[in-house]
């Protein structure tokens, strides 16, 4: 018999069996359905988180080099005032300005702090920067204007508010325009409100001239970071090297770090790679449980169908015929369950996408189908072997 005819006969026979026992078929497949569903959804969630973070990073300008204290993002968060490391000052800013091929140099004073309007108070971020931040980060206002170079020069008490903080402090974000906000003893006039960016920190920031922080807020006149804007991606590594060379004159190697955005992205990708693996491992447990479920049912089936095996053997079925018959059933059951799981997962992903950038990838699909057929074979082979090894005589005498 040709292999294709054999397979089609086996599938037909399995299909016939399932049709006659729909409830059991559905219940047996359910375990795999749930397993595949959870694995695929967890992968989708992992990918979604990654997409989300990447989108956030993309909202920062393209060719950004960040000079930060400590040994990079791993040791110090944005509120990186804690611990040792460099505290940059205006001299550092002047020094790095000498680097060739630089388009923007932005000193960044950054602090999580209470910001209040006449009738509300919220925790937001105070960003003391210069006007070069706006083109570097592609900041645009919905209403009002951005402050400029002269405001930095005259220590103007002006602020550009992120959309969320403006919304929190005033009835409508646009209402903030022209009003006064207060940060500790500093009173600032709101001159512009920024478009919603989707970036948590930007949306909650009050951006003011860094010179305005000099005083009780920032008596030492230091900065948390210095952002460098490079016009062309190819110049990034050159700028990075030069910045390191200049800063090493003043600081120790482990007191500061110069990172480019792509490096941060790489780290983030690594972290999410690990998170994804963990999620897959968790999902795999439910797949395993589904597989054990199939094995259980198949074992019960073998006992239940001992007589059938005996009859088939009496009519000339070989051990291999019986083995294949039972194996086909468990594989078809689990692949069927897997496909349903995949379908459900796809449906959920399509719906959730409206709110969160979850995604299905080829890996998830391949995993769903591959793993469920592997489970069908692995967990099906033991019961199938048991059926095949039944003695024909004992099977046919079985009551």
């Amino acid at each position: 018999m040709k292999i294709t005819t054999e397979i089609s006969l086996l599938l037909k026979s399995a299909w016939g069996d399932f049709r006659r026992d729909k409830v059991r078929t559905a219940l047996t497949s359910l375990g795999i359905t749930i397993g595949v569903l959870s694995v695929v959804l967890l992968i989708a969630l992992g990918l979604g988180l990654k997409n989300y973070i990447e989108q956030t990073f993309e909202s920062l300008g393209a060719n950004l080099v960040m000079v930060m204290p400590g040994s990079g993002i791993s040791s110090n968060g944005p509120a990186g005032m804690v611990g040792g490391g460099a505290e940059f000052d205006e001299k550092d800013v002047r020094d790095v300005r000498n680097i060739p091929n630089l388009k923007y140099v932005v000193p960044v004073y950054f602090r999580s702090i209470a910001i209040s309007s006449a009738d509300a108070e919220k925790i937001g971020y105070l960003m003391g920067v210069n006007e070069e931040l706006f083109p570097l980060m592609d900041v645009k206002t919905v209403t009002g204007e951005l402050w400029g170079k002269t405001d930095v020069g005259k220590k103007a008490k002006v602020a550009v508010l992120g959309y969320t903080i403006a919304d929190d402090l005033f009835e409508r974000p646009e209402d903030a325009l022209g009003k006064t906000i207060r940060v500790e003893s500093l009173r600032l006039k709101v001159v512009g409100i920024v478009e919603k960016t989707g970036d948590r920190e930007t949306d909650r920031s009050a951006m003011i001239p860094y010179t305005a922080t000099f005083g009780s807020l920032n008596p030492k006149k230091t900065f948390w970071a210095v952002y460098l804007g490079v016009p062309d991606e190819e110049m990034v590594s050159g700028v990075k090297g030069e910045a390191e060379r200049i800063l090493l004159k003043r600081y120790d190697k482990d007191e500061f770090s110069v990172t480019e955005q792509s490096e941060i992205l790489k780290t983030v990708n690594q972290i999410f790679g690990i998170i994804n693996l963990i999620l897959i491992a968790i999902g795999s447990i439910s797949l395993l449980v589904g597989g054990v479920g199939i094995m259980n049912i198949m074992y019960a089936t073998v006992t239940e169908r001992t007589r059938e095996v005996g009859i088939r053997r009496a009519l000339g079925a070989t051990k291999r015929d019986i083995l294949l018959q039972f194996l086909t059933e468990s594989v078809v059951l689990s692949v069927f369950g897997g496909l349903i799981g995949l379908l459900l997962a796809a449906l959920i992903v399509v719906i959730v996408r409206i709110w969160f950038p979850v995604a299905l990838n080829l890996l998830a699909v391949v995993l769903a189908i591959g793993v469920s057929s592997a489970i069908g074979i692995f967990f099906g082979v033991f019961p199938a072997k048991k059926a095949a090894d039944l003695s024909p005589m004992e099977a046919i005498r079985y009551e």
Partner: protein
Amino acid sequence: MKTTSSIISLKNVFKEYLLGDGSVFVALKNINFEIHQGEFSAIIGPSGSGKSTLMHVVGLLDKPSRGEIIINGKDVAKMNDNQTSVLRNSYVGFVFQQFNLLNKLTIKENILLPATYCKEKLDFDADQRAEMLMEKFGIISKKDSFPNKISGGQQQRVAVARALLMKPQLILADEPTGNLDHKTGNEIIDLFEELNKSENITIVMVTHEMEIAERTRRQIRILDGEIVNDNK
């Protein structure tokens, strides 16, 4: 009958079962006989005398503990599972007391089942042959029914049709009338008689009813696993 060839021969066949308590139960003791082409014979004996065991050994569903079973000049003991499966598939046809049809297959699918286990290309059209047999046995109108929807007599006809599908050399019937009423049982024996006479099909039938056994030409009497009489 001397001129006809031997289809199957048993020499000094023993079958022993190891019982749960470690003792050995001898179900067949030193069995010797030959079945010839075209014979219609009965194996008779009381319940528990070893008739079914003998059937299973002859039909290659079970192996003897000792002794030789020669089919077509070959010793069954030396065959592997694939080889005995081929013989079960196309050399012998079984008919059982409990009919042993698969309830989830239709009548026609049941009859065709042996063909799906044949590894070689058939020299006849199985589908046509199944139709022909159903026609001949008066069950053609039931071909798409399921076994539990037809009468016992009809089920046994289906079983006989299934046994004949692969044109076997030998039909082995283990108490084929045991689950049928007197009249229906006799109709099955009529069918066997007719197949034996007009198509020269070799039939060995197990029974414990004298009335049924007397309709065959040869009776092999078995008692406690031993042949006590064989009027060949």
